[in-house]
């Protein structure tokens, strides 16, 4: 099922902090009219990205609104005009071929691009190679972040040229000569599509990797593609690699030449509670309620709504939460799933070792779990490498005793962080 467009919601809610780093600074005022694609908030320094208007309309308010994580954050609220179309108009076309790496990075920042793989980390930061390092390979992460999600798959099929172009831009920005696109082997069509479009010079290649969550985790992917171990607690850059999600690069390829801003993204809307599941082009700022109604999940009276995938996604508290740059999927579970979940009885750890076998980081969740139970958080950090846990949730997934392992680990990390801070 190809990607479908989703109409504008009457009101668009655009948090100024949709990315890791400093929030953007508004450049418009309440009551002002905006045009789709127009800059409405500028980047506040290097570790920040600008924001663009998703639709023609008028700035109705700038106020605090609930965010997915719970706390209320500063948002620009835009009332979209009925007449607004979804064509890309505003934007100063540029000739990418003649840009220097620095200029390319600047262009990337200007599009407001962040990692669409989930972390929403400013792409230009990631692509800025530190002086002391030299990056050898650009890894393009074509794994589907999590079960249920299909957006990356669709984009690889439908935006193949953009993907290739975007990859080239990223390569220029980082000055790397080689890029590898890693795609899970359950998507042969995507692999074929990309193969057909690969440039002749062979700088870009595509490789199939085993379909096994969390294959898409940077460290895992780098391991399976290049057989490099990113040091515990380290960043990919330390082994001369930068990882970008296919979505990120495809969007770069699509937006950079026309000098457009990131104002919409592909989102997978699915789950048992959804009547018309699939991938949609969703304008940034569209409230959850609108998306659900459109996808036919509006009248589920009792449900769980998750931003992202089932393994790492975030349950949202309010239907007014908007779609932001980091949202790759919306998952809706209905009553039955919830009850099935709540019926599960929690037993003590029976040392079955499943979690140890499954942990991609080679940790010992069983031990960590028992330590957490005994509130021995220091030991967890000091002797059992809690810090290396990237919360993939595999341990909780398999635990026959239904112990909320990763959940406990988050708490423990939080507490340790607070202690470290204090």
């Amino acid at each position, binding site marked *: 099922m190809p990607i479908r467009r989703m109409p504008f919601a009457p009101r668009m809610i655009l948090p100024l902090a949709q990315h890791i780093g400093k929030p953007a600074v508004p450049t418009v005022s309440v009551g002002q009219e905006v045009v789709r694609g127009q800059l409405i908030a500028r980047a506040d320094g290097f570790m920040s990205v600008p924001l663009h208007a998703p639709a023609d309309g008028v700035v109705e308010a700038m106020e605090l609104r609930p965010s997915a994580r719970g706390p209320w954050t500063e948002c620009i609220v835009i009332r979209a005009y009925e007449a607004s179309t979804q064509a890309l108009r505003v934007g100063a076309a540029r000739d990418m071929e003649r840009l220097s790496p620095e200029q390319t990075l600047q262009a990337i920042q200007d599009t407001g691009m962040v990692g669409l793989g989930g972390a929403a980390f400013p792409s230009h930061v990631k692509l800025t190679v530190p002086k002391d390092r030299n990056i050898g390979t650009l890894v393009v992460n074509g794994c589907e972040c999590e079960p249920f999600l299909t957006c990356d798959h669709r984009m690889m099929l439908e935006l193949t040229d953009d993907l290739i172009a975007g990859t080239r831009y990223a390569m220029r920005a980082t000055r790397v000569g080689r890029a590898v696109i890693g795609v899970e082997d359950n998507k042969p069509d995507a692999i074929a599509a990309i193969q057909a479009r690969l440039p002749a010079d062979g700088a870009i290649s595509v490789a199939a990797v085993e379909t096994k969550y969390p294959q898409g985790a940077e460290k895992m992917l780098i391991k399976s593609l290049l057989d490099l171990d990113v040091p515990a607690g380290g960043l990919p850059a330390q082994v001369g690699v930068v990882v970008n999600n296919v979505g990120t690069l495809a969007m770069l390829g699509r937006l950079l030449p026309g000098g457009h801003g990131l104002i919409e993204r592909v989102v997978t809307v699915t789950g048992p509670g959804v009547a018309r599941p699939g991938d949609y082009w969703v304008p940034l700022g569209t409230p959850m309620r609108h998306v659900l109604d459109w996808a036919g999940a509006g009248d589920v009276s009792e449900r769980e709504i998750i931003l992202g995938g089932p393994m790492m996604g975030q349950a949202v508290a309010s239907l007014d939460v908007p779609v932001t740059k980091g949202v790759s999927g919306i998952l809706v579970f209905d009553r039955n799933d919830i009850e099935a979940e709540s019926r599960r009885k929690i037993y*003590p750890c029976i040392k079955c070792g499943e979690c140890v076998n499954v942990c991609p980081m080679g940790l010992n969740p069983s031990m960590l779990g*028992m*330590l957490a*139970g*005994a509130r*021995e958080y220091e030991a967890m950090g000091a002797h059992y490498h809690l810090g290396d846990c990237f919360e993939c949730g595999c341990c909780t997934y398999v635990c026959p005793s239904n112990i909320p392992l990763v959940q406990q680990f988050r708490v423990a990390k939080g507490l340790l962080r607070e202690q470290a801070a204090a």
Partner: protein
Amino acid sequence: MAPESLAQIFLGAVLANNFVLAMFLGLCPFLGVSNRLATAAPMGAATTFVMLVASLCAYGLNWLVIHFNIEFLRLISYIVVIASAVQLVEMVTKKYSPALFRALGIYLPLITTNCAVLGVALFQTARDYSFMQAITFALGGGAGFSLALLLMAGLRERLNLASVPNVVQGTALTLMLAGSLSLVFMGFAGMGAGE
């Protein structure tokens, strides 16, 4: 001269007649210091060493008391000499090998003369072991003590994380574990017998 072979003596003292679990020697340190793995190993090493010292002293003293026909001074001489010998060793290590002292030294006073240590002396005398037999016995006893200590420490560390009922906490728990281990070690009874 007892009939057992050196192998039988050693294996016996380690397994079937484990000093702690079957002969009930050195229980107080066993119950007291077996809660952490980190301390178990050095504690075992120190004890083994002291037992060796005790065994040597006892062998010599026994010869003396028999030779001069003053058996009634045996016990008193054992205890005094062993105690002072250990203190001597302690001072010497402290002076010449601080590293070793830090590793074992702190435990020495704890075990200067516990049942395991004096026990080696008394049992080797009662069974009139030859010199080699005595030393083997002491080493085996030490090894057995260390093994029991390590196992117990491992189990207790794991149980610290389990939800053990309040009533069972403390010494009662340790004793139950010791009893179970003692059951397990019965399985080695008769090792090398009959041959």
